[in-house]
């Protein structure tokens, strides 16, 4: 096998004088590729900086001074299992968004995405007033959506819908 390689190597070293002329297309292509890469890198940078969703956690919000709790905020956390209450007549969803420390009641007038469920990570955007968060948008955090819940995370109650 190695003998085949060495014979295949030989023409290359013989052809070396020609390489100066044959290297140019490779160089030109490399330059073109570099331009494309830079453009794509810029696109990725732009895309990333415009689409990062920063958020604060419930604990962070509660430790802020009242002056810093005003204005449009993004709050991220876990939907406390079993805390959702959907009022279909008013089209209003109420749930508790929690982190290991605290939970905050969120009132949303917008329909959450269908992936929204107990225990999932969510980011809500809106205003904080009188101890409640009024959300104008509910984002489900792209996270372990399909991963089976660990048994400890399952709500314990055995609840069927009964007529």
């Amino acid at each position, binding site marked *: 096998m190695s003998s085949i390689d060495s014979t295949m190597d030989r023409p290359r070293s013989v052809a070396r004088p020609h390489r100066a002329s044959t290297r140019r297309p490779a160089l030109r292509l490399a330059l*073109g590729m570099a331009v*494309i890469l830079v453009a794509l890198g810029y696109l990725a940078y732009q895309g990333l900086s415009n*689409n*990062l969703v920063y*958020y604060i956690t419930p604990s962070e919000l509660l430790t802020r001074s009242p002056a810093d709790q005003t204005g449009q905020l993004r709050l*991220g956390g876990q939907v406390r299992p079993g805390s959702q209450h959907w009022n279909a007549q008013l089209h209003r969803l109420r749930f508790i968004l929690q982190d290991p420390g605290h939970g905050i009641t969120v009132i949303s007038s917008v*329909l959450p995405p269908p992936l929204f469920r*107990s225990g999932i990570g969510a980011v809500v955007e809106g205003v904080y007033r009188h101890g409640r968060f009024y959300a104008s948008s509910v984002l489900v955090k792209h996270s372990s959506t399909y991963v089976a819940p660990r048994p400890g995370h*399952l709500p314990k109650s055995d609840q069927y819908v009964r007529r």
Partner: protein
Amino acid sequence: MASLAGHVLTLSALFIALGGAVACFLGGYRDRSDLVAAGRIAGLLVFGLITAACGVMIYALVAHDFSVKYVADVGSRQTPLYYTVISLWAALEGSILFWGFILSLYTALVVMLYRGDGSRAMAYAVGVLLTISSFFLFVMSGPGNPFIRLANPPSNGPGPNPLLQNHPMMGLHPPLLYLGYVGLSVPFALAMGALLAGNPRRDELSRIRRWALVAWAFLSLGIIAGMWWSYDVLGWGGYWSWDPVENAVLMPWLVTTAFLHSLQVQQRRQMLKTWTLTLIVGAFVLSIFGTFLTRSGVLASVHSFTQSAIGPIFLGFLTAVMAVSVLILVVRSEQLSAPGTLQSVVSRESAFLLNNLLLVALTLTVLLGTVFPLLAEALSGQSLSVGAPYFDRVAVPIAVGLLFLMGVGPVLPWGASRLEETSERLVVPALAALGAICLLLLGGVRGTGPLLLFGLVAFVAAATAGSIRRDLRSRQVGTREPWYEAFPLLVRGNPRRYAGYLAHLGVLLLVVGITASQSFGTQAYRTLRVGESMTLSGYRLTLAGIRPDPQSNRMVLQAFVNVSQSGAAKGSLAPSINYYPGVQQPVITPAVHIAASRDLYLVVRAVDRRLRWVSLQAYVKPLVSWIWFGGGLVGLGAIMALMPVRRRRPAEARQEVPLFAEPIEVAP
């Protein structure tokens, strides 16, 4: 009992795999064929043992043996038999067992298929496969043990995640993905074996290609099946959300796609050997990385992954695999430097190079978006998530570039360029693109992005049709066959080329389906009382009734919706909302009316407990079925590419004139 049997089986498999790996490496290194033979037998034994372990687990699941912790976690007496059996892969431990099973199956296949190959490279390849098996068996016998025994078994379990027992596709989609994901180990092992033994030969590269194609076919079909599952189960009217779980599968697929393309340049022009081998190594590394990402809990939070030992172990394995493969590639890179050089910028090989660049760039983009939140949280403690628009924004331009290359590539000649001829060949495709855009504009289609993409699809289709026509012409010059006789012979004579066209056709259908359904879908949301109606895109939807349907494992509330279009009844759809015991959030099952032109997709978002009204969300999505059809064609293309090629004489293979220009079979 079952847990003891399972544990003994996996433990003995671990020791046999380790011993076999050592025997293969040592036997290969010292040219001891007896040791290599022992290593191969170890490969077969490991397959037998893991198969038996899987059998034990399935038995425990079916027999509801809740003394096995895994069964107590995912099983329940109410779950139907089908979903009980497939809950083998419903959670972490079981899926690692299943992973090990598939890997040992592939190992046994490699051992059996190449039993006549006594080369050092093959011995090392089996050694590499057994090493990977050892790692998974180690995880199985320690931190990810599926056979842990519970001292106080419960009388019943919670059953698998409701999402996973809501659709029969769950029996097909994960095995396909695993076959693809784990299948990447084979080309990786063959490449590593060949590299450890020296410089991979041509036939060894063909072997790597073949197995990469097998994995790629399964990955493609698995991804499509997953999209279908997501569309049919999750009820948000979409099929792809740039979820890390999806990205984890997409990345190895993209890199394997790049490998399959760059290998053609390698085989044809003797270029890019190191690069090509790097790609297949990269695809395997990404498959391990994907497993780490989805199975370690790192996605929930960076800080949660240290809670189980699986995360750090996977990270360690990943680092080791990367370090060893990079080391081997660097050591061999001098020998690998290929004799071919690029002769012209305008040539098919540079089209392939650009294709590789774009595919790898797309992979890196997806990787960046997937791990950025993790890195940010780990490094700066900031909580953030990357929105789907990031992925769309970067992926769409790259996809446009790839599509363009898909049209131009097959038209360009290998080696030196003949610019005039090439541009002549692109006149008709360009006109086709313009024509398609004009027709669509006349038909009322608006939007720059969709029009551009549809135009490109027409461009690629016309360019490919032109190439096929030229092939046909040059064949007919020799044989004077009518086209309907010539075409099948042409395809049979060049299965790889036509397999590529078939896969490309599938991609075109995918692009049309994705573009149309993403750009021109409509939706409406209403709360309907029984008897009330809503309208959407010409459909009139009337709530006929709500029916409770208690089943063994769940309570199903079905809403019957009568569909009519301009007065004519179109039938009835029954989306439902399912309540599982012990799970508070109900799982919704959408009802979809699938048609070639557009899907009508209904979801019940909420239902009155006294069954007087439902909140109904309706989507109309054009051309979604094209995605499934296109995905199927991609898979079919991969299978066709696996068909053996007739051996050519070296002199013929090197000719500039395409092979199909010659009369292969002269008609009498």
